[in-house]
């Protein structure tokens, strides 16, 4: 496939069947390989969408500084887009994110401001909002509340999925900013009203939920509960176990958040199989495992891996 530039190559990712993990020829699992994007994650779609929307609205001109709270992938995608389009980038990132993400960001020339580990991305959002108020000349796309995030999936990921899998019955993705689920979910529902949209939410360990009080909780402005059929909480043990199964059974080397989505997808597949129904279940492989090697998630026993990623933002 030929493209005029790296930016033009964002999206158009393969959808691959998982014949070993699928329970039968009637209940099939399909993986959308978003790690095949230019910087290796689904967030390239979002980064390009956010920047192009800001350009169209006249909020960004060459030389401007972009500020964004991110746990990593959105930042890396933005860093690539910013480099190619001539913007500066400052990422606010929780300090408990993997070293690889920081190295990649620095390589692209982005500046990193660390936010406290306790509180996870909530803190990054809070710090970024503070900085944005202090520096009105910086442009904050704000992935958690910017419709361009969900629209990147509404115009890209959703149509690609439906074209490749017209018989789709379920769509499963990790829940973070909620952009993937909102965008793909809305698109698929418009074309297949009976499709089930299922969120798989990473359940971290206690440090990440270290709020001072419940009023400091956070629900992304993009989140619209009515788009979802249901929502599962998946802990580190199951996410790690499924990430390893995906590699062992199907050869796909994915990041840990993919194990989270696969866990939910396998639960749906088992239920459909037991009920004698047919199903085509597609889920998102958000990124590859490369950026998480230093966490120790891929070595030793599952229990050891679980201990090693304790306190980390693994999705």
């Amino acid at each position, binding site marked *: 496939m030929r493209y005029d530039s790296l930016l033009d190559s964002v999206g158009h990712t393969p959808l691959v069947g998982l014949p070993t993990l699928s329970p039968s020829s009637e209940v099939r699992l399909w993986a959308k390989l978003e790690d095949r994007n230019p910087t290796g994650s689904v967030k390239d779609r979002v980064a390009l969408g956010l920047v192009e929307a800001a350009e169209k609205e006249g909020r960004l001109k060459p030389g401007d500084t972009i500020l964004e709270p*991110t*746990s990593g992938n*959105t930042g890396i995608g933005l860093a690539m887009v910013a480099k190619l389009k001539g913007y500066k980038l400052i990422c606010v990132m929780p300090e408990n994110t993997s070293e690889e993400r920081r190295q990649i960001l620095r390589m692209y020339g982005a500046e990193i401001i660390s936010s406290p580990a306790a*509180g*996870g*991305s*909530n803190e*990054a*959002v809070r710090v970024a909002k503070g900085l944005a108020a202090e520096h009105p000349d910086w442009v904050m796309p704000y*992935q*958690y509340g910017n419709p361009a995030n969900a629209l990147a999936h509404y115009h890209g990921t959703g149509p690609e999925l439906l074209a490749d899998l017209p018989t789709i019955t379920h769509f499963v993705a*990790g*829940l*973070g*900013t909620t*952009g993937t689920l909102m965008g793909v979910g809305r698109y698929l529902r418009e074309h297949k009203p009976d499709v089930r949209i299922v*969120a798989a*939410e*990473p*359940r*971290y360990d*206690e440090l*990440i*939920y*270290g*709020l*001072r*009080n*419940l*009023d*400091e*909780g*956070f*629900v*992304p402005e993009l989140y619209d*509960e009515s788009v*979802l*059929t*249901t*929502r*599962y*909480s*998946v802990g580190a043990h199951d996410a790690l176990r499924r990430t390893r199964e995906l590699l062992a059974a199907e050869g796909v080397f994915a990041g840990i958040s993919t194990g989270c989505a696969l866990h939910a997808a396998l639960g749906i597949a088992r239920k459909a199989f037991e009920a004698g129904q047919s199903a085509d279940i597609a889920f998102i492989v958000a990124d590859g495992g490369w950026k998480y090697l230093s966490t120790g998630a891929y070595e030793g026993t599952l229990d050891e891996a679980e201990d090693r990623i304790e306190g980390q933002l693994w*999705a």
Partner: protein
Amino acid sequence: MSVSVSIPTILRTYTDGAKRVEAEGTTLAALITDLDTRHPGLGDRLLDAGELRRFVNVYKNDEDVRFLGGLSTPLTDGDAVTVLPAVAGG
């Protein structure tokens, strides 16, 4: 009947530091009423004007109760309920 309820760090002041407590109720609403009897004040942290608070997520066997009937979600013996504050991902 008994349901195991996992309590987040931030609410353990109501459970004498216990991470997991037992309670009874055939619906989530009844369970929260029972929880509040055993751990006074806890109910008010979960509910606001008779609804689940915006930044409180409750899961029955790992599924979000907001998709299972909310406070009317039926519970049976051996179910596991998890309470978590809503936090940002991404």
